[in-house]
Each structure stands twice: as structure tokens, then as C-alpha cells.
């Protein structure tokens, strides 16, 4: 890394460390946590949905597996959710291969529909497993109060610290992928799969690897959610709403880029909170907001908000250069 990048990273860490001191109001802090959490989820989705361009509408599958695996292992065997998180991640990786092997033969909308269907199947299975998984009513994570070793704490700052680390990991994963051969291959696949094949790119293996990485990160997000909210239900963690939300945050921000998913979350999550306050918590207000913003952004800049920002920045440097010449 360049010295400038190290400085930027240190600055970001310092800034993030101060946030809970400034916003000590639990409500504000919870919105910040949620925003960072969605930035993390959008970055996880970005690996397969953005960089590789495979529009997955089934990421709730991995989220749900993460949430249910750690919670069930905790409730049944008293296993710490930290370990359950790894088990969930392993299971999600397996599921990504199981879903990916047949679905990657499909392209475009058919792939999206197949991933959506796979998630619906999982949701129905969980809803009908009354004894082990609590059926449609869901599961409550047993309260242990201040037990960091069991991924629980009464203070929100605990979760804030964890989600910041998660974001850093997801950012680094995206950064490393985008700079590597793997990232070039995924970008090539997104642009033209046949042309990539002709250059020796094993597209199926690349897509599977991307799907597994994406699933593992998403699954860890699922465990975080379960421990943060301390309650999970099939509707919440396996729902199509969640799948769509993760994808839309990334797409609005700018799929396939490093900062687009973060930008999408930084804009959408607070906006959703405002919409909720304005409508008095009307059901569906958030989804309507997402739909509306998606239409507007796609109409004017299909590459997302980050592309608009870049254009503005370019224009500004160009203007400055012109002044310099004159």
C-alpha cells in the first residue's frame, strides 16, 4: 500500500472510533449500525452480483443459513455463536455450490429467477420445521446479557465495533479481488462471457468461487443479525424482501465498484428511516422508496450513484486543468 492509502485508512479508523462517542443516542447509533451493516451486505453481494455481474436475487438464502445455523447450534448445544458463525459460513459455502452448479448454466433473468426460487424453497423448509427451527414464528436467541464470548452485549457499541470490522473485511476483500487476476476475470465474464472463455477464463469456476466468497460473507452477516436483533424468523432472514434489498443497495450505489455499495447503503438506509418516520411506519414504505430510487437511478445512470460522483469529480479536475492552462 502507498503511504497515502495508509494515512487514509488510519484516518477512517480514527473517524469510525469517534462515531459512538458523538452519537451516543441509541436510536442514532442503531441507524448507523444498520447502515454499516447494509454496506457490508451490499459489498458481499457485490462480489458475485456486481463484479461478476450475476444478478442474484437469492442472497437471503445465505443470510438465513448463517442466522439459523448459529442460533440453532447455540440453543440446542450451547455452542457460542462465534463458532456457529463459522459453521453457518461453511454451510452457506456448500449451498452456494449447490445453487451455483445448476444456476450458472442460466443467464440473465433466468439466473435471477432460479436464485430467487432456491431461497423460497429454503424458506418453506424452515417454516415447516416446527420443532428444530421454530417454524414460521421463528427463534429467540436466549439472553445472556453482557457475554462477548457468546456474541451478545447490552451495549450497542459492542455491535458497532463488530460491524465496523466486518465492513473493513468486506472492503478489503472487494479491493483485493478487483486488483487481482480473479477480479479481471470476473469483470471480463460480466462484460462478455464467451469472449472471456475464448481467452482461457474458466468462467464456471470463477463464478463458483465468487459465489462461495459472497455467500460466506453474507452468512456471517446473518449471524451478526441474529445476535444483534436476538430474534429471527423465516420471513425476516429468508424473505425475498431481504434478497432484493441487498441487491438494490448495491445496484443503486454502483455495482462492480469498491465504494458504490457503501455509498448505496449510506444513502438508502437513512432515507428508509426518514420514510418510516414520515409515513408513521406504514408497511411497504421502505420497498416503495427502494423501487422509486432504483427507477430514477437506472433511468439516468445505470452504473449507479458512484458513476455520477466520478463524473462530477472528473469535470472538476478537468475544469481545474483548464484554469491551469489559461
Amino acid at each position, binding site marked *: 500500500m502507498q503511504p497515502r492509502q495508509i494515512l487514509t485508512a488510519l484516518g477512517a479508523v480514527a473517524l469510525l472510533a469517534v462515531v459512538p462517542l458523538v452519537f451516543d443516542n441509541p436510536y442514532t447509533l442503531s441507524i448507523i449500525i444498520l447502515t454499516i451493516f447494509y454496506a457490508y451486505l451490499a459489498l458481499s453481494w457485490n462480489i458475485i452480483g456486481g463484479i461478476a455481474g450475476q444478478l442474484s436475487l437469492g442472497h437471503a438464502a445465505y443470510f438465513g443459513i448463517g442466522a439459523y445455523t448459529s442460533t440453532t447450534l447455540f440453543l440446542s448445544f450451547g455452542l457460542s455463536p462465534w463458532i456457529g458463525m463459522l459453521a453457518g459460513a461453511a454451510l452457506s459455502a456448500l449451498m452456494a455450490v449447490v445453487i451455483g452448479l445448476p444456476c450458472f448454466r442460466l443467464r440473465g433473468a433466468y439466473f435471477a429467477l432460479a436464485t430467487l426460487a432456491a431461497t423460497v424453497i429454503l424458506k418453506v423448509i424452515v417454516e415447516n420445521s416446527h420443532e428444530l427451527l421454530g417454524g414460521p414464528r421463528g427463534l429467540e436467541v436466549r439472553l445472556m446479557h453482557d457475554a462477548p464470548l457468546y456474541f451478545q452485549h447490552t451495549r450497542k457499541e459492542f455491535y458497532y465495533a463488530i460491524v465496523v470490522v466486518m465492513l473493513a473485511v468486506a472492503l478489503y476483500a472487494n479491493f483485493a479481488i478487483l486488483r487481482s487476476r480473479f477480479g*479481471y476475470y470476473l469483470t471480463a465474464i460480466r462484460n462478455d462471457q464467451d469472449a472471456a472463455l475464448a*481467452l482461457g477464463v474458466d468462467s464456471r469456476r470463477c463464478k463458483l468461487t465468487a459465489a462461495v466468497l459472497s455467500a460466506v460473507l453474507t452468512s456471517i452477516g446473518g449471524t451478526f443479525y441474529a445476535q444483534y436483533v436476538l430474534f429471527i424468523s423465516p420471513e425476516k432472514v429468508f424473505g425475498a424482501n431481504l434478497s432484493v434489498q441487498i441487491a438494490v443497495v448495491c445496484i443503486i450505489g454502483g455495482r462492480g465498484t469498491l465504494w458504490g455499495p457503501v455509498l448505496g447503503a449510506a444513502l438508502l438506509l437513512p432515507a428508509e428511516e426518514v420514510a418510516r418516520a414520515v409515513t408513521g411506519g406504514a408497511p411497504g414504505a421502505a420497498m416503495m422508496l427502494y423501487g422509486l430510487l432504483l427507477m430514477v437511478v437506472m433511468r439516468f445512470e445505470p452504473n449507479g450513484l458512484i458513476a455520477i460522483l466520478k463524473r462530477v469529480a472528473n469535470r472538476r479536475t478537468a475544469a481545474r486543468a483548464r484554469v491551469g492552462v489559461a
Partner: protein
Amino acid sequence: MSLLEYKQIAKHFGGVRAIEDVSFSVEVGEIVGLIGPNGAGKTTLFSMASGFLKPTRGEIRFRDRRIDGSAPPAVCRMGLARTFQIVRPFGEMSVLDNVMVGAFLHHPDRAAARRAALVVLERVGMADRHDQSARTLTLAGRKRLEVAKALATQPKLLLLDEVMAGLTPVETAGMMDLIRSVRSDGVTVLLVEHNIQATMQLSDRIVVIHHGRKICDATPAEVAADPEVIAAYLGEDED
């Protein structure tokens, strides 16, 4: 030993016999032209060698190994690279990044792939445009980029699918120079071309396909004098 060998290849699409019993070979160091009227089956022959289509019957051998039915990336790794008739740049990537995708095949490290890609770009005369978005290239630029991407995989055999179609005479001459220099670097070339004149000038040998069958396999001069070839191009209902 032949570098590439088609042995009694047939390809049927349902009831359509696109290719029927075609055999020919390409020797190391040759430039071989594959010509024929529209719809003769030239691109189908390319697609079968590069792994995109599986022959209905017959066998394709490359460097003495059977490759028909292999997946495209495996064929590319063995040293057979193709370009596409309808150019397929990775539009969201820069010219350099496009070529790097090819270079990564033998240079897994990013810096090494970048260096290799720049050498290739220098070679095809596009080094000054390496920063440009591939989408903004002219047709001639895109055709050159197709060749550059394929060359970056360091092939033994290059299959060029109409890289001169749509180019001006000056651009065509430039492309011909490029193909000749590629061959003098030790890369064998098999090219499909509509531009008969350019093919005649470039090729050591020409294979003529008509209605999915081989009707001639000879030097350019012999092909030009062959009555069956002349009939295929001028006579009957072909354009």
C-alpha cells in the same frame, strides 16, 4: 506433423447440415485462408476448433491431441486462440485491461500481466490508446484489440475470424502487415475472410468451403483458376 487437423468433420444443426465431411490441416508456420460464400460454414469450423461447438462427427486434433469437445478455456490454454467475427471487447474495461485478461493466462501476477499486455499493445500499434475505454474504439481499433487479446494468451495458432471485414483499404493493409508479422514471430495463422484479394495475398494455402463441403485446397493461384471455386462464387444462387 500438422498443428491443426480437421478429420472428416460434420456438424448438423437439427436437419441442417452446416458442415459435411470436411478434412484439412494447417502446418506449423503457415498462413492458411479459409474462404467460401456466405453461410458456407467457415465460422462453424472455427467454433468447433475453439471448443464453442461440438462436432456431430469426426475429429479435430491440435498439436497431436484431440480437442473436439474440449471446453474453450482448455483449448486456449493449449495454445489455440480465436477472435470473433462480431468483435467482443470488454466494453467497461480499458484497452489495456482487455489485453490483460488475455495476458493473465500465462502471467498470474498483475504487474507481470500488465507488462506483457503493454508489449502486445506496442506490437499491434495500440500502446498510445491503452487508457481508452474499449467501448469508444473505432471498428478498426476494435478489430486490432481482438487480435491483441488473443495474442496476449501467447498462442501457437491464431484463428482470425474476419478481422479485415469493414475496414478501409489503408486499415486492411495495416492489418495484413500485422498478420504477417505475427506469423514471422512463429505463430501459425488460420483466417476466415470475405476479402478475397487480401486472403489471396496473405495466405500460403487456401481452403474453399461451399455448402458445408470442402471444394478446394490449394495455393492461391490454383484456387483462383479452379472452375468449381469460380462457379461457387459467381454462379448459381450465391451472392
